[in-house]
């Protein structure tokens, strides 16, 4: 991305830190119990099977212990009784932009969604708090049988397909936060692409949290039938609040034989949000699943996009970046499970720590017995902007088959003062030089993004680094 283009964009920094007056048609009381779970299901007019699924999940949530690994001290600060589990901003869903209530529209205007759609988007599902308020999909995809809707609608309108796959990739008993999501989920996207259909343009959704102490528990299910192809993009920005919020999403992807799914996320939750997300995909024979995952905001992120390669020749690619600034922990990584012969996976992780932030790459490469000819390549690079920042690499490798090939490379290093000097000797300020180096560092990730996301990401990084320079966290003085 050309820098002057970025500069000329007139970054409105306040856009990441604004909030609307709260307006609701329904807001549950704080905390969670079985009655609230029932109430959520009733409010949504759900069928009994979903209500039962929620209640069963809630009971699992109650019993499941918190994870005992990772940044446990941070996790233990979550007060499940101090969170709203369901907020419904408006009563009716609308399909045309003109019908979206003004205050919500303002929010999206500031995020640039309408322009985005005008340009090239096939469809938008924008989640404002818990309910999807705006949804559209270009008719050309609808005529080919592509379903792109919010999850609540999908439960009502496509019960046979939802019931069959919902919770099969990430079952409620997978972990405490998956159980919580299964009990109180609201919103999220549902995508079904029929056999042999290629959706050429990315499908896209935006998410925002606006209510203080409000949890966001969206649930996404993507099914690409045999030979189908789809790229889904999810963007998240949230306004700042002083007390903690919880984001515990579940994303399930099923790529049938020969299908291709790419899931791209750039998330920039405000820095008091717990971002605890379970993302998992099943890839059947010759299918390919790609996770492109960028984590900038949040107080604590724990997210390890996973691909289970269940059929011969399945492929996985997980490309992620994490940026941790002051008070932030980005515990992110990837999991690949090779459960069939000749499956291949590639993991590329880039992390940036500054102003005493901490990044952790946590990864699992598992090759099951019988998965002959499988290959994995993992590459992790950590960049530290100043002396106080921290980075850890925790790779787990579990190999149960001999005829496989594995490659792993990991580097961690402080930003090169010689590179900075070189760039500054050409007239770049220290901040410009830092931004240039960091954007170069994440270039392999940025290249995988649509242009608008690349621009937004570069801008966010520029903003973060400005703080690092201004607060004097860096010791070397030019």
């Amino acid at each position: 991305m050309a820098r002057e283009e970025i500069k000329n964009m007139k970054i409105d920094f306040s856009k990441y830190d604004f909030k609307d007056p709260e307006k609701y048609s329904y807001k549950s009381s704080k905390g969670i119990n079985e009655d609230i779970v029932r109430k959520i299901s009733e409010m949504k007019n759900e069928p009994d099977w979903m209500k039962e699924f929620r209640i069963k999940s809630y009971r699992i949530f109650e019993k499941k212990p918190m994870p005992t690994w990772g940044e446990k001290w941070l996790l233990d600060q979550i007060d499940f009784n101090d969170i709203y589990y369901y907020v419904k901003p408006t009563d009716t869903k609308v399909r045309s932009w003109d019908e979206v209530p003004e205050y919500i529209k303002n929010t999206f205007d500031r995020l640039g969604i309408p322009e985005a759609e005008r340009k090239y988007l096939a469809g938008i599902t924008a989640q404002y708090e818990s309910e999807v308020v705006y949804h559209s999909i270009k008719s050309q995809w609808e005529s080919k049988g592509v379903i792109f809707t919010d999850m609540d609608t999908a439960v009502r309108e496509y019960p046979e397909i939802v019931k069959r796959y919902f919770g099969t990739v990430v079952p409620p008993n997978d972990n405490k936060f998956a159980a919580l999501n299964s009990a109180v989920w609201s919103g999220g996207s549902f995508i079904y692409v029929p056999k042999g259909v290629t959706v050429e343009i990315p499908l896209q959704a935006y998410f925002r949290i606006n209510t203080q102490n409000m949890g966001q528990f969206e649930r996404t299910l993507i099914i690409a039938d045999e030979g189908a192809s789809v790229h889904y993009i999810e963007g998240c920005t949230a306004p700042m609040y002083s007390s903690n919020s919880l984001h515990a999403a579940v994303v399930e992807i099923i790529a049938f034989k020969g299908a291709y799914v790419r899931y791209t996320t750039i998330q920039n939750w405000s820095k008091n949000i717990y971002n605890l997300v379970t993302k998992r995909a099943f890839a059947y024979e010759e299918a390919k699943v790609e996770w492109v995952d960028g984590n900038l905001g949040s107080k604590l992120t724990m997210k390890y996009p996973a691909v289970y390669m269940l059929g011969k020749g399945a492929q996985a690619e997980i490309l992620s970046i994490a940026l941790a600034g002051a008070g932030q922990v980005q515990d992110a990584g990837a999991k690949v499970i090779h459960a069939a012969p000749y499956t291949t996976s590639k993991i590329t992780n880039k992390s940036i720590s500054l102003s005493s932030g901490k990044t952790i790459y946590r990864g699992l490469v598992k090759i099951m017995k019988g998965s002959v000819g499988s290959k994995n390549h993992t590459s992790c690079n950590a960049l530290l902007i100043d002396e106080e920042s921290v980075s850890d690499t925790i790779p787990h490798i579990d190999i149960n088959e001999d005829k496989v090939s594995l490659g792993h490379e990991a580097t961690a290093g402080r930003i090169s003062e010689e590179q900075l000097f070189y760039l500054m000797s050409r007239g770049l300020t220290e901040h410009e030089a830092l931004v240039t180096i960091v954007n170069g560092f994440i270039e392999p990730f940025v290249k995988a993004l649509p242009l608008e996301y690349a621009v937004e990401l570069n801008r966010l990084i520029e903003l973060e680094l400005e703080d690092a320079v201004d607060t004097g966290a860096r010791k070397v003085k030019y």
Partner: protein
Amino acid sequence: MESFFRVVNLKASIDGNLILKGLSLEVNRGEIHGIMGPNGSGKTTFSNVIMGNPKYEVVGGDILFKGESILDMSTDERAKRGIFLAFQYSEEVPGVSFMNFLRLAYNSVNSYRYSDFVPPKPLEFRNLVKSKMALLDMDDSFFNRYLNEGFSGGERKRAEILQMLLLDPELVIMDETDSGLDIDALKVVSRGVMEFKNERNSFVVITHYSRILKYIKPDFVHVMIDGRIVKTGDHTLADRIEDNGYDWILKEVSYGV
């Protein structure tokens, strides 16, 4: 009259070791000065200190550029005011597009120098770069590469000179630009330099060998030994060093080694 570039009794150290031990030099507008010296004499330290590399500490003396001390100026301010260092070893910066970097640098220095500067459109700028690249026998493939990444020795030196041509400095420090260049590449690089050279800009050409000074003819040649300029002469001094090495100078100045 205030001199253009003046180094006064400069002392600088790295990691507590004194490298420059009282170096003085005066360069007027339009002049080319060659600085020769054996390995370890402090040539690269000198070029880095002029550019403000924070690795080095200035412990005495001063550097004046157009009458002002530059010691308290940041590296980028020195660049913006018109000082350019062609590095002996330029840094690779992975993932940073060569073209975007050139544009960024070009816009940075020019918006500092000219209040009415309007950044050129991408295509205009591309054409500007292409015209400079032609002088250096560089082809379009550079547009698609990352900054210095995987560049051969000769490509790096050309890339440095290309940056010089674009940034239009008034004072150019060349640090061993001839090292690692074959004779054809050296001719190309020198041609680029001489094309750029005029009565407004000055050059300090730091080198171990005299051969670059055959193509970039110096008005003065200085010999640097152990962090000081110990002898100054005209271009014939370079020839004598090529023929006889540095030992005779050491004897002549009876510099205690």
